Structure formats: structure tokens, C-alpha cells
């Protein structure tokens, strides 16, 4: 799923743009960075309620495809700066975590364990 589609589905505000036609393979919703480090695969989109610089650092370490901040939580300028320096796209949605994940799953974006979203045969 392309980042531009994700922006549309989540009615998201793009905080730090990058190549929005970039393809995302899976998504992961987490507030624990150690969980993200353990479970995510490459070209994973992270949905999180955390807005600390550590979220962007985590993205850098495991090459996340982008970050969506949920429930309208807006990161500070130092976080935006760090993401810009890395070319990491940041998005902001007003939807809470569960609904954000549900909307993307329903649209066909799979997770890092089952690996498939809705509409795919088991």
C-alpha cells in the first residue's frame, strides 16, 4: 500500500513529507520501542502514540517506511527535524490507535505476523 493511500484512509496530516508513492508492506501499532525492534519487518509502517525522538531513532535503526502518530498527538520540532534529516515520512491522524490500525487492515494492509490484511484468503 502506498503512503499516499495511507494518508487518505487515515485522513492524515503529512508532517514530514518524503516519497509518498513509497510502498509499505506491513504495519505495526506499538508504544513500546523494544516491541517494534523485535517484531517489525522491512518497509513497515509504525503507528504509535509516542512522540519522543526515540521513535524516529527506532525507525532509523530498522529502516521503517514511515510513522503515523495516532489520536492527534503532535511531536515537537526536534522530532520533525530528526525525521527530515533521515528522509523519514511522518504523518498525524486524529483517529485513535485501534481505529487507525483497523482502517488500514480493512483496506488490505497486513501486519507483521499474519502478514495480510482483510480481503485476502487465509
Amino acid at each position, binding site marked *: 500500500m502506498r503512503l499516499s493511500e495511507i494518508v487518505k484512509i487515515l485522513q492524515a496530516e503529512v508532517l514530514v513529507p518524503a516519497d509518498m508513492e513509497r510502498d509499505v508492506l506491513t504495519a505495526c501499532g506499538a508504544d513500546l520501542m523494544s516491541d517494534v525492534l*523485535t517484531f517489525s519487518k522491512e518497509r513497515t509502517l509504525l503507528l504509535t502514540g509516542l512522540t519522543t*525522538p526515540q521513535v524516529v531513532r527506532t525507525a532509523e535503526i530498522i529502516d521503517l517506511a514511515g510513522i503515523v502518530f495516532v489520536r492527534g498527538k503532535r511531536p515537537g520540532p526536534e522530532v520533525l527535524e530528526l525525521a527530515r534529516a533521515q528522509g523519514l515520512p511522518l504523518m498525524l491522524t486524529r483517529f485513535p490507535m485501534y481505529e487507525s490500525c483497523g482502517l488500514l487492515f480493512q483496506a488490505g494492509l497486513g501486519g507483521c505476523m499474519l502478514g495480510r490484511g482483510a480481503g485476502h484468503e487465509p
Partner: protein
Amino acid sequence: MAEVPAMSHDPSYDLKIPVIGHDFLRAGEAASRIKKVLQALNLPPQVIRRASISAYEAEMNIIIHAYRGQLALKVTPDALTLVAEDEGPGIQDIDLAMQEGYSTAPDEIREMGFGAGMGLPNIKKSADKLTITSTVGQGTRLEIVIRIS
């Protein structure tokens, strides 16, 4: 800018990066530098990923728990070794610290997304070999070996 090691003449590579306890603003910088060096060395992506995760968790452990420490990276053609050494409180019970979910980190660390008791188990999962030595009241040393071939 990534430090580009002179790989063509010297197959091994050494790097030491100091890490300051409670310096949360710079948390992740050491792991990021290590990742860039490993990328410049053209190591396989899975090796880079496992080493970067290990380095990041080890760096966070020093920042969360210790007064000061360092990450050292050594790369030979066969394996890379990461040594994380710190001066700090040490680990009372290493078996307990290795259990997923066990943590002595304070709440403000958890609010940053760390301190959930997954650091050492994550490092163990990423490494081919992990050796922990610790002296209570003095500090901790982790030796992480990841095979390259």
C-alpha cells in the same frame, strides 16, 4: 556523515563510542553511527539489522541504568563483535534480567517506549552469542557476537 572504513586494505575494523548515562537527547546516536559503519562495510542486510538492534538496545541500557559506558565494535571477515561496557549499578540477578518483561527501569523511561524488560532478551535473539558479566555496584559488560558468513 558515515565514517567509511578503509576496507580494501584492512579487513578488520575497530570503533569505540562513549555513551553517557541519562543522556536521553542523544540516545540512539551510537547505534546509528554503528549502523552507518556496517552499511559502509557492505555487510549483509540481516547482519546489519541484527547488529543495529543489539547496539541500540545495549546503548539504551547504558543510558537508562548506568553512569557512563561505551560501545565498541570490532569487525573481522567472519564475525562482528559488539562490546557494551558500563560503570553503573550492575545487575543483581542476570537470569531474572534475561526474562522477557522483567525490568527495573523507572516509569519515566517507560513513557519513552523503553524499559519494558525486552532489551536483553532482544539482544539475545539478535545475537549468535551473548555473554553478560556484571558486578553489583561496579558495572556490566555485554559481549555480542554476530557471525557474518
